């Protein structure tokens, strides 16, 4: 893997991290954060679920 590949991976990771932060802080919905991350809704949802973060942004049952 070359330096350019590593830079792309790092940028992708940063984009994902920023999107997760936006989701958890309430700046973005799940769909909005997925688009920020450049991921499909289902892939982003799965990434959050695997980290135990999905339910954090789901509206509370009242």
């Amino acid at each position, binding site marked *: 893997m070359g330096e350019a590949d590593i830079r792309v991976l790092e940028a992708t990771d940063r984009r994902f991290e920023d999107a997760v932060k936006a989701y958890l802080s309430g700046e973005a919905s*799940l*769909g*909005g954060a*997925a688009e920020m991350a450049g991921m*499909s809704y289902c892939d982003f949802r799965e990434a959050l679920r695997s980290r135990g973060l999905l339910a954090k942004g*789901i*509206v509370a049952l009242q």
Partner: protein
Amino acid sequence: MISQKKLSIVADTGPLLALGVVGRLDLLSRLYSAVFVSASVRRELEDGAPKYTDARRVTEAIDRGWLKVIFITPALSEKVDAIIHGPPRLGRAQAESIVLCQQLRVNLILMDDRQAARVAQAAGLNVIHGLDILLHAARSSMLSKAQALSHLLELEQARQYSEEELRLARKRIEQGCMTHGRG
């Protein structure tokens, strides 16, 4: 409490996937007179269908025809863009779901996402939570108490909802108290 009998509803992606997880999308067609999704919701589901069983189950429901896909009219596309940019920032499918309610003059939206639900409520819509569908179905005897509790367990294993939400839903089912949330 909103009586869902004979009402139409617009559904967002998240709760459809939750019902797909438990394989009970049929409850929507039994509880509501018509269930609509936006074209962007369909696209999200189609993107996920090759990899995820829940998404595939929803696309199959669309193929069967009772889950109806409606396109946003060009006149309302600016409204979609405005909602996307927020704040909060929403996904296109969520924004289209909210605008589709206005386009179809439907006052009920099935939506789980906290931020998107707030925007929907601010737009004057009544928001139904995905778990509410199981509660309604149990209240309407479409599901036995044991079935409803079993589906909650499946959702818990899928980590679809928080432990607190599932605990509350479980308590309501056990007590026979089937009120839903917002609206």
